């Protein structure tokens, strides 16, 4: 099958949805002529014009807030905030408005909006351009949180997100944006709350998200040679979370590592550990190990950044602890 990048898969989904539904439009900083900081909206302005692919002022509160308003007015906004690091600037709109409007008005209104954000540390961008705190959004009732890994996941989940009646936080990890994978030309969707077992195994489950899925797969290959059979489960959406697929894997293997690029404390890795400890603890044969970013801001200096980003080394150490 055809191989395209994660970025291209998203671009294809946007194009498809904009062609098929006039209500869909995009706005954000530099998404027009420049095609977005990571190229996801490249070329869309040529096909759909500046009335549907809109470069906005540098005003994140308004970018998200007016996105919500446009959704209330009947449109289907796909809004880009360049880096997750800039969402604290518009967090009120996300947490207090986008997430709550449907509920607090008793179901009268809906906010069918997709908020695309880029996360992760890469390329020495330091403390304010390297974060991964989407667990905030999991902690917030009312939001869907989507974390696609492969180009296939990206296209299917963005299609589902744009079609959704709910507000969606769509998380794109920097380190996966240029990775290629098989993606059908035709359109398809992937339901929310549907984890993907990216690799089958018997001895140990690694639940991993985004870039860490690739790392986990590589480490699993290595470990296969050492006789350890690792199953890699990718939740793909953190909210709703496909507990059953995770639980089934842990019931089989009895051992669990949860790996997510966010800081560990109160992150999704903690959540998944806690769920297992609450609901199927009797299946555990070993401690549940979390792998994530250390409890520090992201440093600039290349060797420090390298040490900061969780990856294969941290996974190997975690495996060593429980195998």
């Amino acid at each position, binding site marked *: 099958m055809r191989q395209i990048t994660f970025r291209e898969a998203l671009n294809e989904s946007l194009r498809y949805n904009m062609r098929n539904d006039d209500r869909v*439009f995009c706005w954000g900083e530099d998404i027009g002529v420049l095609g977005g900081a990571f190229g996801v909206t490249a070329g869309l302005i040529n096909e759909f014009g500046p*009335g549907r692919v809109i470069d*906005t*002022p540098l*005003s*994140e*509160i*308004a*970018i*998200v*807030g*007016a*996105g*919500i*308003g*446009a*959704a*209330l*007015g*009947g*449109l289907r*906004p796909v809004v880009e905030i360049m880096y997750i690091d800039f969402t604290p600037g518009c967090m*009120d*709109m996300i947490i*207090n*408005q986008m997430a709550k*409007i*449907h*509920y*607090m*008005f*008793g*179901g*009268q*209104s*809906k906010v069918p909006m997709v908020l695309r954000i880029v996360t992760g540390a890469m390329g020495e961008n330091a403390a304010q351009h390297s974060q991964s705190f989407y667990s905030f959004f999991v902690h917030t*009732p*009312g939001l*869907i949180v989507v974390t696609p890994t492969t180009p296939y996941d990206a296209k299917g989940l963005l299609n*589902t997100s744009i079609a*959704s*009646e*709910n507000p969606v936080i769509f998380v794109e990890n920097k380190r996966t944006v240029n990775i290629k994978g098989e993606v059908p030309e035709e359109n398809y969707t992937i*339901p*929310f709350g549907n984890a993907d077992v990216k690799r089958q195994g018997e001895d140990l489950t690694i639940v991993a998200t985004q870039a860490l899925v690739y790392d986990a797969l590589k480490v699993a290959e290595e470990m296969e040679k050492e006789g350890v059979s690792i199953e890699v489960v990718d939740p793909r959406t953190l909210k709703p979370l496909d507990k059953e697929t995770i639980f089934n894997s842990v019931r089989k293997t009895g051992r669990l590592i949860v790996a997510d690029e966010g800081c560990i404390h109160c992150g999704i890795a903690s959540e998944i550990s806690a769920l297992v400890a609450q609901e199927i603890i009797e299946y555990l044969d070993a401690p549940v190990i979390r792998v994530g970013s250390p409890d520090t801001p992201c440093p600039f200096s290349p060797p420090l950044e390298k040490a900061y980003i969780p990856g294969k080394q941290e996974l190997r150490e975690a495996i060593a602890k429980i195998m």
Partner: protein
Amino acid sequence: MQIDNETKIRMLKEMLKIRSFEEKIQELYHAGYIPGSMHLSTGQEAVPVGVCLNLLKSDYLLSSHRGHGHVLAKGGEYKYMMAELYGKKTGYCGGKGGSMHFANVKIGVLGTNGIVGGGICIAAGVGFSIKYQKSEKVTVCFFGDGAANTGAFHEGLNFAAVLKAPVVFIIENNQYAISVPRKLSDCVEDLSIRAAGYNMPGVTVDGNDVMAVYETAKTAVERARSGGGPALIECRTYRWHGHHAGEPKDGLVYRSQEEIDSWKEKCPIKRLREALIAGNIITEKEVDTLEKEFQQELERAIDFAEKSPYPDAEALYENVYIDEG
């Protein structure tokens, strides 16, 4: 501008509708019937009425925490509002919202907001949706003088200006943000001067003069409707009571009785009422009848609210997400 007598009578009626509601629910609140916290707009009635008389049912409205008057002026009904204030299933939001979170999408009320300034950027986007759909609606957005100092105000007005969105932003300047007076909050005489920063019209008007509000809003609404883009109107007014029902000393901790009394003298309802009676446009007796009718309607609303059930226990878990069929 010539305002016809019918419109003038309607102004009085709408203001009485708001005043009657606010005074009654204040009583009910103090008697313990209404839970939560409520922000009354007694004394500020000319603003919602003067603005909303320029709107069609299909136009949109967003409002603040002090939103009862806006909802009523846009066509809100006592009984569903009362039921909402009581937290009943029959309220506009099924009891989920309460005083700070009224919405009635059918009449264009997209929501009052518990976050000060929370509606401003949303309004810009609602305005954009109108333009995008090539419709001729208008969005109005009410907020206080305090809200004019939030970052959302700046971003929302600039965004609306850049998009040329049909939005009329209304500052209800009642001189205070809770206890904090204007002089500790900003350094300008007229907050409407800030419109210049977005190259949109900005006007300050006597917010206790319903006809002046009406006329000023008319210009802005018509301009927005015909593609002229957003505008900012500052209405100078005053709230008679404390920041919220039940505030200690009803606002006297940070305001003097003289100040309050001087504004009561400038009551927007008294002013219009006296003018209409003097002009033989309405009689004393007709006004009394109107007031009585509102009282009766209020009694029916209270009855409706009291007899309505609370939401079912499952309602807690409903409306968090829409089922993805």
